[in-house]
C-alpha cells in the first residue's frame, strides 16, 4: 500500500557532510506553513488558554486583567450567572443538534448510497438532487428553508394544514428552533455523507455479494452481514466528521433566527461569537473556546488514532 517505505531512502543518509545552507533547505520549505500555523493556530490556542484564566473588567481606561484561576469556568456552569447563565443550555442544545443530525443523516446517507449504487437511468440528476445541499453555503441553504419554515407562507405549515394539523411556529418558538435547524442540517449533510458511503460501497468486491446470493441471503441479510460490517470504518469516520461539524455550526442561526435573543435554540460557536464585542466577556469567551476546542479534540484525536495512524502502517 505504502510505496514510499519500500522505495530507496530519499536523499541518502548523510554520510557526506552537506553544506550548512543545504541542510537548512527543509526548514526553508516548511517555514511559510509553520509561520502561518503558528500565528493562526498555535499562538491563538495558547492565548485562548491563558486568557480563560483572567477576568477582564470594562472601563474607559480598562484595569489590567486579573488572574482568577478557574473562576471563569465555574461561572460558565452557574445557571444564575448574570453574563453566561445560558452556557449550559447552549452546550446541551449543541449536543442535541449534533446527535439529532447524526442519528438521522447517517442512515439516510447510507440509504441514498445504496439507492445510487445501482444501475440507474439519469443517475446524474438524482445524484445532483441528493448531493447539492452539501455544496450550498450553509447560509444559502438556511435561507431556502427560512421560506419553507415561515409561519404564514411556509410550505411546511401548508402541508401540515392539509392534514388538518395546526401550523407550527417553526422559527419563532424557542423550542421549535432547535428542531428546525436540526432538520436543515440533516438535509444538508446527508448528501455529503452519502458520497463517503458510495466510495465505501464501490470498494466492496462484487463477488462477495454473488457468493452471499448463492447462499440464499436476501437484501436485508446481505446488508446486515456484509455491507454494514464492511462499511464500519466509513461509519466511524463519518461519526467523527459529523460531530466536529455539528459543534462548529453557526450560519443557520444567523439566517433562521437572526434577531432572537432567547438562548433556547442557540448553538455554542454562535453564542461565543455573539459575546466577543464586550470586554467583560473576554475571559468567558476564551474559557468557552477552550471547552469547545476540548470537545473537538476528543473527536479529532479519535479520528487520528483510528484512521491516520492505521494508514501510515498499512
Amino acid at each position: 500500500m505504502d510505496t514510499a517505505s519500500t522505495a530507496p531512502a530519499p536523499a541518502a543518509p548523510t554520510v557526506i557532510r552537506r553544506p550548512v545552507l543545504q541542510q537548512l533547505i527543509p526548514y526553508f520549505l516548511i517555514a511559510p506553513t509553520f509561520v502561518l500555523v503558528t500565528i493562526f493556530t498555535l499562538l491563538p490556542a495558547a492565548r485562548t488558554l491563558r486568557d480563560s484564566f483572567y477576568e477582564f473588567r470594562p472601563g474607559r481606561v480598562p484595569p489590567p486583567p486579573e488572574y482568577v484561576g478557574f473562576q471563569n469556568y465555574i461561572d460558565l456552569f452557574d445557571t444564575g450567572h448574570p453574563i453566561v447563565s445560558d452556557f449550559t443550555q447552549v452546550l446541551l442544545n449543541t449536543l442535541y443538534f449534533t446527535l439529532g443530525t447524526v442519528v438521522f443523516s447517517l442512515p439516510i446517507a447510507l440509504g441514498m448510497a445504496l439507492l445510487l449504487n445501482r444501475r440507474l437511468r439519469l443517475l446524474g440528476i438524482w445524484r445532483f438532487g441528493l448531493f447539492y445541499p452539501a455544496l450550498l453555503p450553509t447560509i444559502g441553504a438556511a435561507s431556502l428553508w427560512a421560506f419553507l419554515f415561515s409561519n404564514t407562507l411556509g410550505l411546511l405549515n401548508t402541508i401540515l394544514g392539509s392534514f388538518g394539523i395546526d401550523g407550527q411556529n417553526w422559527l419563532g418558538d424557542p423550542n421549535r428552533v432547535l428542531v428546525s435547524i436540526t432538520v436543515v442540517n440533516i438535509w444538508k449533510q446527508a448528501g455529503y455523507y452519502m458520497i463517503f458511503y458510495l466510495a465505501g460501497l464501490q470498494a466492496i468486491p462484487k463477488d462477495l455479494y454473488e457468493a452471499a446470493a448463492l447462499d440464499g441471503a436476501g437484501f436485508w441479510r446481505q446488508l446486515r452481514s456484509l455491507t454494514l460490517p464492511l462499511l464500519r470504518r466509513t461509519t466511524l469516520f463519518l461519526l467523527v466528521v459529523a460531530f466536529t461539524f455539528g459543534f462548529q455550526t453557526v450560519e443557520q442561526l444567523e439566517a433562521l433566527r437572526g434577531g432572537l435573543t432567547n438562548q433556547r435554540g442557540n448553538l455554542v460557536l454562535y453564542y461565543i461569537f455573539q459575546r466577543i464585542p464586550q470586554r467583560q466577556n473576554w475571559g468567558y469567551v476564551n474559557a468557552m473556546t477552550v471547552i469547545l476546542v476540548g470537545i473537538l479534540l476528543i473527536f479529532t484525536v479519535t479520528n487520528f488514532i483510528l484512521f491516520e495512524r492505521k494508514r501510515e502502517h498499512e
Partner: protein
Amino acid sequence: MSNRRNRWSVAADLLTVALALLWMMPLIFGVLMSFRPQAAPITNGNVFVGCAAQLSPAQQALVDQQEAGQSIRLLGCTLTLSNYQAAWEVAPWPRFFLNSVIFVVGVLVVQIVTVTMAAYAFARLRFPGRDLLLIVLLLQIMIPTATLIVQNFATIRQLNLFDTHWALMLPYWGSAFGVLLLRQTFREVPYELEEAARIDGAGLFGVLRNVYIPLSIPAYVAFALVSISSHWNEFLWPFIVTRQDFARPLTVGLSQLFETSDTGANYNNIMAGTIIVVTPLVLLFTLFQRRFIESFASSGIK
C-alpha cells in the same frame, strides 16, 4: 424469482426519484419564489399548484401594473424578474462576487505554493525534528480555525488588517490538510524520476515543476475543489473581520439581505439573492460532477 427482483428494483427506482425530488424541494420552491411577483404572494396552498393562484381581477391588475414590462405569463401564472432587480439593488452583488473570487483565488494560489513546498520537504527530505513538526502541523486539523475566532480576530486587529481582503485570506494560507494530502501523493512518485531530473541538472524548483507537480495533478485538483468550495461558502470568519461592503464576500452579503428586511422577511428578494449566491457553485458542480464527488470523498479519508 427474477420477476420479484424486478419489482424490488422498480420500487428502489421510485424511491430514488422520490427522495431526490424531496431533497430538491427547497431549491425548487426557492427558484419558484424568486420569480413570483410580490403583489401575488404565495399564500397557503397556492404554491402547490405552481402559481396558478386564483387571483381576483383586481389583484391581477395590480400585479400587471407593478410588473409592467418585466413579467411574462406562463401556464396561467405571472413570472417576473423584478425580485432579482430588487435584490440586485439592495446589495452590491458584483462587489460581493468579486470579493468572493479574490478571497477564494487568493487563498488557493498561496496555499498551492506553501503546501507544495512543505509537502515536498515532508515527503522526500530528512531533517531533525521532522516527525515532531508533522505532528505539530496536525494540530491545525485538530483545532479548526473557526473555533479560534476570538483570538484570531484580536490578531487581525493588532495587524491593522480589519476590514481588508488580507484579513479574509491570511488564516487560510497555511493548510495542514493540503500538506498531508500532497505529501502522500509525492511519496508515491518514483524517486528515480527525481534522481534522473537531478542528473540532468535540475534544481529543487526544477524537480518540483517537472516531476512532482505534473505527476500529482489529480491531487491538486482534489485539493483545489475542496479549498474553493469551502472558502466560497465560508461565513463566520468573513462576517467577523469585515464591516463594509468593500471586502465582504457573497455569503455575508446574503446575510445582510435578512437584516434589511426587518418588517418580516421579504422572501421574494431573499430567494432571488440566494439563487444569485448559490448558482456559481451549482454550475461548477454540474460541470465537474464526477471530479467533485471523487475529490470530496478522497479529501475526507486522507
